[in-house]
């Protein structure tokens, strides 16, 4: 069978309505490439304008308000009015800043956000003025890695902007933001691995092609959940918008920015939101493929129709972001880091191992039922073990806490015991005692 496959003449890589593979790229004439590149910019700019309007209207509806409704029909022109107003404001560059870096940072945050969209597939091969071309600017053998690289580059814009501002708020916001983004990027990268295991490729067009039968959001549901959480952390949106927590850090890393430079940071945030949503659609929600009942219709996955399915999925994912913002409060920073490092990353690593083991067992000829049976046993053991572990540890912790409160009550009379800050709450101890190998329980601090 393999010989017949090899002997078959290579089909022409481009036929209308066909799912493109990696070979289908790099055959476009120059004007088509240029048109696609310009269209990506136009598309993203329009999406940002639309998202700002949509976010405000959607959230207003959720909060029983009207939202912007004065400029244009339904307030549709409001983002354009805002977008025109912002660059025309006076641009203040405070005296103490590091000027070149201060000016470079917003550009550095914006550019990678746009670049990542180059590898998002909008649809299958279509005919444009007689040219058969895939609806995607470029595809690389390492396309998804490229997206991760671009989001890492975007962190430079944030941390350099925070540093160059020479303001404590900006510096803290920039540091927080970079620590958060790199932490969540690890979880994000690990959530992709299971997708690569199934698709056998890092190229986005081939990942979409491999989801013809079933979406990876269904098959790899835990990966999808991890991605959905990390993508919110990655783009600094509520409930993970700590870098710009207004109550704590004024504006965070963009406190000192005004006018167009501030606008650039905002633009980057919304473009990033679009990009991670598009990536969620591409990797987990079947890309441009029609959802199930529609996919049975002949020609639903051909021609220009897939652009419609892609846009519907994209808008639903963006609505998810807005829904989160309207619903959830901001988490605390220690909760954020705990979730990232102690839940998402170990969870993602464990899940990769499970998926890989199942695949190997299936390749070795063991039936799916047996595999599921084995997984169920392992999961059962894990759940029981973790339950026991929690019960034992919880008891011990309760005992410790009781001891601590008893000691506190006993020590309330002496000189340090009455200090409400001594236990590290609400103000954290500044020398971070656990770095010296000690525990920072209230008991020990009280004794010191």
């Amino acid at each position, binding site marked *: 069978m393999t010989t017949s496959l090899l002997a078959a003449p290579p089909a022409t890589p481009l036929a209308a309505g066909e799912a493109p593979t990696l070979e289908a*790229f*790099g055959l476009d004439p120059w004007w088509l*490439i*240029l048109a696609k*590149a310009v269209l*990506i*910019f136009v598309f993203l700019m329009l999406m940002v304008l639309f998202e700002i309007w949509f976010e405000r209207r959607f959230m207003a509806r959720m909060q029983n308000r009207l939202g912007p409704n004065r400029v244009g029909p339904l307030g549709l022109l409001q983002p354009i009015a805002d977008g025109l107003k912002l*660059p*025309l*404001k*006076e*641009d*203040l*560059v*405070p*005296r*103490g800043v590091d000027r070149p870096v201060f*000016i470079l940072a917003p*550009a550095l945050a914006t550019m990678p956000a*746009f670049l990542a969209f*180059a590898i998002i597939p909008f649809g299958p091969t279509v005919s444009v003025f007689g040219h058969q071309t895939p609806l995607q*600017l*470029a595809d690389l053998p390492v396309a*998804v890695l490229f997206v991760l690289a671009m989001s890492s580059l975007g962190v430079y814009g944030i941390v350099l902007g925070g540093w160059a*501002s020479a303001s404590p*708020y*900006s*510096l*803290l916001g920039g540091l*927080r933001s970079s620590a958060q983004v*790199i932490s969540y990027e*690890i979880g994000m*990268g690990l959530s992709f691995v*299971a997708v*690569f*295991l*199934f698709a*056998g*490729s*890092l190229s986005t067009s081939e990942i979409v092609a491999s989801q013809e039968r079933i979406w990876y959001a269904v098959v790899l549901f835990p990966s999808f959940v991890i991605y959905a959480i990390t993508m919110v952390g990655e783009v600094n949106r509520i409930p993970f918008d700590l870098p710009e927590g207004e109550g704590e850090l004024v504006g965070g890393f963009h406190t000192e920015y005004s*006018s*167009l430079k501030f606008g*650039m940071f905002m633009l980057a945030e919304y473009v990033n939101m679009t990009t991670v949503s598009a990536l969620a659609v591409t990797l987990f929600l079947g890309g441009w493929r029609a959802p199930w009942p529609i996919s049975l219709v002949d020609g639903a996955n051909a021609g220009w129709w897939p652009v419609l399915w892609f846009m519907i999925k994209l808008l639903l994912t963006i609505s998810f972001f807005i829904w989160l913002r309207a619903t959830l409060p901001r988490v605390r*920073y220690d909760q954020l*880091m*705990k979730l990232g*490092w*102690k839940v998402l*990353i*170990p969870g993602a*690593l464990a899940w990769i*191992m499970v998926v*890989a*083991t199942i695949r190997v067992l299936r*390749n*070795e000829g063991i039936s799916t039922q047996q595999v599921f049976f084995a997984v169920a046993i392992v999961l059962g053991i894990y759940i029981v073990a973790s339950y026991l572990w929690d019960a034992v540890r919880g008891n011990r912790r309760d005992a410790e806490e009781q001891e601590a409160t008893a000691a506190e009550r006993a020590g309330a009379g002496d000189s340090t015991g009455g200090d409400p800050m001594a236990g590290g709450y609400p103000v*954290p101890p500044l020398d*971070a*005692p*656990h770095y010296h190998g000690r525990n920072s329980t209230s008991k020990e601090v009280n004794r010191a």
Partner: protein
Amino acid sequence: MDGYFGSYLVVALLAGLGVAVVGGAFTAGRLLRAQRPTPEKLITYECGVDPVGEGWAQSYVRYYVFAYLYVVFAVDAVFLFPWATVFAAPGYGAVTLVEMFVFLGIIAVGLLYAWKKGVLTWV
């Protein structure tokens, strides 16, 4: 525009376009907006209080530890991705799996060490 680096050339074109757009926006903004700086306007913003000393405040060293951990896991991911793509191909099987488990185990020990050290606990 074909060959292995053809696609990267296209991405470079997009980057060039991006530089043009951002540069154009900066230039247009410079020409169009008002510019009347006063000494008060150029003070670093500190919620209405005059700033004291330099703006570069001391900050926690712990962010630096997270940067280290990030490098470890980024390298981890770089090894995981190519492994994941060839994994299901014929000729790779249980041995590939076990090798990756050993590698992930080593990485996990690193994470556990940091965990035990208390680096992951935010005070």
